[in-house]
């Protein structure tokens, strides 16, 4: 028997492992599950049930924080599919790395001008790139047919690209928060 404590993050939410997730549906599931598992309703219960509820509510929070963030979700999905991302990606193509360096330089230039509109436009551009990679990642991890190994290998590659862009965006936002 698989108890809820042993379930993977997707199964805990009653979902099949997939990258495509509707954020508001995920939140509603999270909320209803948390109403069930949270220690508050167990405040008067036995020590055993209180303990269990803390553990399960903690697991639910962890699962939600992973599934709710696209990059963390992608990483987790790859782990579930047996191709865990490594700390240091080795075979990213030179072109992509060069593009990253250029992007960093471009950001430094934009940042120095202090032009709010240009800063916002730059960040929007990165977001668009992330979305494009996400779409490709989703296609690769859900498509049928072809060589599975090849597809996952490719998905892993896309994941590293997503990771680069996300870091770039985080750095930009830390230096110049833009609300849109």
């Amino acid at each position, binding site marked *: 028997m698989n108890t809820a404590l042993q379930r993977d993050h997707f199964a805990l939410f*009653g979902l099949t492992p997939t990258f495509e997730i509707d954020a508001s549906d995920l939140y509603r599931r999270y909320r209803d599950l948390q109403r069930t598992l949270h220690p508050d309703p167990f405040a008067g219960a036995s020590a055993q049930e209180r303990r269990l509820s803390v553990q399960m509510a903690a697991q639910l929070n962890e699962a939600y924080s992973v599934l709710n963030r696209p990059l963390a979700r992608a990483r987790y999905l790859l782990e579930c599919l047996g191709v865990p991302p490594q700390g240091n990606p080795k075979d990213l193509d030179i072109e992509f790395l060069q593009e990253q360096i250029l992007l960093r330089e471009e950001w430094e230039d934009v940042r120095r001008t202090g032009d709010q509109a240009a800063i916002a436009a730059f960040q929007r551009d990165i977001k668009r790139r992330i979305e494009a990679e996400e779409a490709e990642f989703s296609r690769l991890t859900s498509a049928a047919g072809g060589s599975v190994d090849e597809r996952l290998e490719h998905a892993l590659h896309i994941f590293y690209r997503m990771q680069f862009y996300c870091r770039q965006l985080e750095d930009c936002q830390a230096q110049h928060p833009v*609300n849109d």
Partner: protein
Amino acid sequence: MTLLQISEPGQSPEPHARRRAAGIDLGTTHSLVATVIDGRPETIADAEGRILLPSVVRYLADGAPVVGDAARAAQSDDPLNTLSSVKRLIGRSIDELPDFANRSHYEFVADDSVMPKFATVAGSISPVQASAEILRTLARRASEALGGEPEGVVITVPAYFDDAQRQATVDAARIGGLHVLRLLNEPTAAAVAYGLDQGSEGVHAVYDLGGGTFDISILRFTKGVFEVLATAGDSALGGDDIDACLAGWIKERASLGDELDRGMQRQLLTLARAIKEGLSDHEELEVTLDQPSGRQWRDRITRTQFDELIGDLVERTLKPCRQAVHDAGIGVDELIDVILVGGSTRIPLVRSAVEKFFGRKPHLEIDPDRVVALGAAIQADILIGNKPDSDMLLLDVIPLSLGLETMGGLTEKIIPRNTTIPAMRAQDFTTYKDSQTALSLHVVQGERELVRDNRSLARFELKGIPPMVAGAARIRVTFQVDADGLLSVTAREQTQGVESRIEVKPSYGLSDSEIESMLTAAMDHAHEDMDKRRLRELKLEADQAMEALIAALQKDGDRLLNDSERGEIDAALARLRELNQGAEEAAIRAATEALDRVSTVFAQRRMDDAVRSALSGHGVAEFSGDQDA
């Protein structure tokens, strides 16, 4: 007794029996207690009609300590034995005394304990004990209003309190003889009082500037769920610092010199507070002070002068505000309102700074001194089981990252700040020497890279690791933070199963035996001794466990257990029931543990069942093949 409510929403086990619960705001300057009466939270006044209890405790050579207004009145005359603002010291070590604005007003005991202790006529007193006296006084007040001792209380703490400060607050409650249902963050409590009162859904900011602490929390409120997105603050910044700043001004203007006796220092602070309060309603005030020389000093102070004096202090609150808004991942314009909490938000400069920063007029419909206690009362009423069909859910976060010391004195974060609680994270470590049989762990809290810049919470050691080559052992360290924000840490060697577990007790906190002896001392005049008390609590706990289990068995036993599982549980139940008639502590404890063991699978299945039904309303309720659970 409360039954498991997951299974029977909308049905109270005993509809007519309301249980006695209270919410306590244990503040730096004053404390108060509230309870829910006829569905509404109300603050409870004392016999003289006073709601705010000054958080001041005066120790006497003989007899019980005096708490509240009478103690505060004696402050200038008896400064050494009259303790105030102890909240600023709770859970802190002697090294942190410089943070304490009033440190020069007291004498501290120099012993080998790292916890600061005041030297008083009644002996050495820790901030935890003084807090316990305040809690006890409020509990008595609640007992009179409720017609009996509260069965459980919710105590509020600053959101920015670290693990040591939270643990010390729980210790104070234990010494005060209170059953703590939950520690609740002050801004969250305020949001509960506002949210339920006004029902406005959206993202709120709560700006809480109290007597000694500052918190800013960003929360989202939707459909009964209060979700803290981020919190930040300063646990040593508040009205006390404003008073100290004004006292400095008086000292300078009146040319009082630096050598003031403690009574005079006290008098200055009292005058400073009066000026601060006066300038909230007036543009200018006349100030007079009787000097030690017998002469009277006279001067005027305008609000503009006052604003200049405290400008930096108010500015200091804005940095955490920026931080919290950033961490919440929202823009200031997405906030639907800003709620002011804490007496110090009465200061006009504070209000205008908040208004300017958030770009909107802050809310203050509910008295900023009472709003926290009211929110705590609402939560206490729910937790004690009086509102089984409430759909309120509070999802709070930890304010500061929790981590471990690694090589080179660096901090490795295990649970980052603003993680929703309860939280659990594990990390694997290994041995770095051949045949290493022990691993020391140093648990720290804070955002800084170097361990020495963070808060040291505890050190412990996993012993008995089987000898292996360096790097072969796999030691999983698990951090678990419960709904009170309290941390426990487990270390387990994976290949051989050696385990070590600690509730994180700050290195300078109180041990269980210290708490017990303080409890005994506090109950000197009381009627039962420690052993009896312990036995009573144990029996009560056993009763609770049995009642909860029986109710669960009636509901789900036939469905979720087979005959032999059921037989085992019934046997353990019968044994505990029999032993619980007697007075053998060890036997009752063992039988309670045995019952716990044999019924774990049942509890687990019930949880799974609840998970399934929580998901049943959501389209794809598939359980990847293990529906036979």
